[in-house]
């Protein structure tokens, strides 16, 4: 479909400026269609998945709709199924309202003291974003008065019904004046959703983003789970180990392109940026130099990368998760051109993004596999093998080496053998990576997850980490939640780490049975487990854990590294030279 630039949309200059600050150029499909409809006052049903930029689709009109002179009354109410979504939507809306003085967005959700939220509501919020339960609570307390609400947005309505908020949502809808505008977003259009739209929406327009199914069979798709703030480090490690001849790194905003460009350049990579604010001549120049291989890394926004045709891109990195599923297809389609194969890696930070990856998987009809971020050891290995190759090459040629003989002679004079000298030289050569320990072992969890996720059953974690051998005796703990209650290895792992505060790497084998599950931890942590996992709520089940046996660490040490963590050697031409 025809997408519009934000500058082409009929929105205020304040919001345009804020959008520009955020670095967005083009509105996504859902934004292009929905924003004008909502701005015209229509009720809208948005049938779209997450990760399509729908927060802006309702957030921008919400900001525009607010009468900034009325600071006291709630004018827009946004209802989200989860706390995370509410916080995220609120943060985004605040960004759009950056230059609109008088727009005050207040998030309200459970799990935080209600007093604080009451205080901020009393201070005045004309846009309120919240979860159903907390909204109801505030309405009962007469803190949240909805008599002046002009627009209500139900975000991820299907999710809210799935979570049992049906009655709450209906109650909230009935508490709002009937002449309001109602916007409903839902990924599915179940009978129940249709009933709600029939009952509560007036003559709504349906906006449906058709799925553009493109086949991407020759592209291997992976994602990295990266802790927030560590994406650049992870990217550098991946670049070093995978050593692509050409790679495109996609970012969502111009600002991010610029930041990443200077960051990579500072670290010695030949990286160039491409975005819509650059002059055409600079763009052409950049592209030429990428094609010619002068820059082997191109960092680009979606819009800028459109239409560029470079045949031998080995890897596409989605540094930012694409805003739109279609973008994902376009992005990864930059590799594996002309019948070649290619790889795509997407950086994922946080739970919401994990959800989005799952949806993308469904959208492309192919599993996007979790991949371990290449470690420093991997880089070291790659460099070592390249150095070996280089040295052998020089030795084979055997010419013109005599001029270096003087150095050797000098050194051997001082009682060093030539072997000592060779060792020292290799150390000098490989040292920088050891000194430059960018990714420490806190990312190790990714390896474990990678293996767990990619294994067929996904239910058993084997004890494989050699580093566990020094943790002493491991013990088995039984927790009274099983498959029948929806337990899975990742759920147990997160429950254990959340409750005890121990890192995931300490958790050994996890076994899920119908009624019970088992997990291994060092025996020394038994009292911590007893203490912290008493009456622990896991998937809405109150659970208890007990130690059932102890064993020697040796037994639990059938060490094996996940194969996925090995660097790809398919076209190893040696290490990337820092230039």
């Amino acid at each position: 479909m025809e997408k519009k630039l934000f500058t082409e949309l009929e929105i205020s200059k304040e919001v345009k400026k804020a959008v520009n600050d955020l670095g967005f150029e083009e509105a996504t499909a859902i934004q292009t269609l929905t924003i004008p409809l909502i701005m015209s006052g229509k009720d809208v049903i948005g049938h779209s998945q997450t990760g399509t930029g729908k927060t802006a689709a309702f957030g921008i009109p919400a900001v525009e709709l607010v009468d900034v002179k009325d600071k006291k009354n709630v004018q827009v109410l946004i209802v989200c199924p989860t706390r995370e979504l509410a916080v995220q939507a609120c943060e985004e809306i605040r960004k759009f309202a950056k230059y609109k003085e008088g727009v005050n967005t207040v998030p309200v959700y459970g799990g935080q003291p209600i007093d604080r939220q009451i205080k901020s509501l009393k201070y005045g919020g004309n846009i309120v974003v919240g979860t159903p339960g907390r909204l109801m609570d505030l309405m009962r307390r007469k803190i949240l008065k909805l008599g002046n609400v002009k627009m209500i947005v139900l975000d991820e309505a299907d999710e809210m019904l799935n979570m049992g908020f049906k009655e709450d949502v209906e109650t909230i809808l009935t508490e709002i004046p009937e002449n309001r505008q109602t916007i409903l977003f839902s990924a599915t259009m179940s009978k129940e959703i249709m009933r709600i739209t029939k009952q509560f929406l007036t003559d709504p327009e349906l906006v449906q983003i058709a799925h553009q199914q493109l086949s991407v069979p020759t592209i291997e798709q992976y994602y990295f789970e990266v802790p927030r703030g560590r994406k650049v480090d992870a990217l550098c490690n991946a670049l070093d180990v995978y050593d692509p001849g050409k790679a495109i790194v996609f970012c969502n905003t111009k600002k991010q392109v610029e930041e990443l460009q200077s960051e990579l350049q500072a670290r010695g990579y030949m990286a160039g940026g491409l975005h819509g604010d650059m002059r055409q001549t600079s763009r052409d120049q950049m592209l030429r130099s990428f094609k010619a291989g002068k820059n082997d890394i191109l960092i680009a926004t979606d819009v800028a990368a459109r239409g560029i045709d470079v045949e031998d891109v080995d890897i596409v990195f989605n540094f930012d998760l694409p805003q739109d599923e279609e973008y994902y297809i376009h992005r990864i389609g930059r590799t594996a051109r002309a019948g070649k194969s290619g790889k795509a890696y997407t950086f994922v930070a946080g739970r919401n993004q994990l959800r989005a990856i799952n949806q993308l998987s469904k959208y492309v009809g192919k599993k996007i596999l979790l991949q371990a971020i290449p470690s420093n050891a991997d880089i070291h290995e790659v460099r070592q093998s390249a150095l070996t190759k280089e040295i052998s090459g020089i030795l084979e040629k055997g010419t013109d080496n005599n001029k270096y003989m003087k150095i050797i002679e000098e050194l051997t004079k001082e009682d060093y053998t030539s072997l000592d000298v060779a060792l020292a030289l290799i150390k000098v050569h490989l040292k920088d990576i050891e000194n430059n320990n960018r990714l420490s072992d806190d990312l190790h969890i990714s390896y474990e997850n990678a293996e767990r996720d990619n294994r067929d059953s996904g239910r058993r974690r084997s004890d494989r980490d050699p580093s566990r051998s020094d943790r002493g005796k491991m013990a088995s703990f039984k927790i009274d939640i099983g498959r029948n209650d929806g337990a899975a290895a990742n759920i147990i792992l997160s429950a254990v780490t959340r409750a005890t505060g121990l890192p995931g790497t300490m958790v050994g084998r996890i076994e899920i049975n119908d009624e019970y599950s088992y997990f291994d931890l060092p025996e020394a942590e038994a009292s911590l487990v007893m203490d912290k996992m008493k009456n622990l709520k896991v998937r809405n089940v109150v659970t208890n854990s007990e130690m059932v046996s102890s064993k020697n660490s040796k037994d639990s040490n059938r060490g094996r590294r996940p194969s996925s963590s090995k660097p790809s050697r398919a076209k190893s031409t040696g290490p990337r030279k820092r230039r």
Partner: protein
Amino acid sequence: MEIIYRTAGIDESYKMAELYNEFLYDLKDSSKDIYFDFENISVSDRVKLLEDRFNADKGMIVVAEVNGEIVGFISMTIMSCFMIVSSVKNIGYIEAGYVKPLYRKLGITKKLEAMVVEFLKEKGIRYLELFTLLNNEPANESWKKLGYSPFRLQWRKDLNE
């Protein structure tokens, strides 16, 4: 949020009549059954009908109050058992139980019902009865949870069909 549970007094008969009518409208909307349809109901008529409920020998109305607003009630009347010759004689009959949508799922009905039960026990009355519609699953579930079970079926035939 503080919820106060108490018995309603005769001075609140208009307020209670209004809320009672709200309950009837809710019944009308949710039952989707012509049997429970009505044109208009007047508050003053309802006031008259409720008169007996403020007489402790004949019934009671218990209410839940939040910030001075009555958000839920149960209206109970003491009447003879449907089988006149039965040795049971008088029973308590919940003719209306209603909680405003915003205040549901807070356990209000449970508290109100307990007050009614206590009141009847003191009077030596053994049974407390009520009717719900078969298709009203949420109501059926919640009365079941409070220890009620169905003991007779009321049948009807639509003679117009």
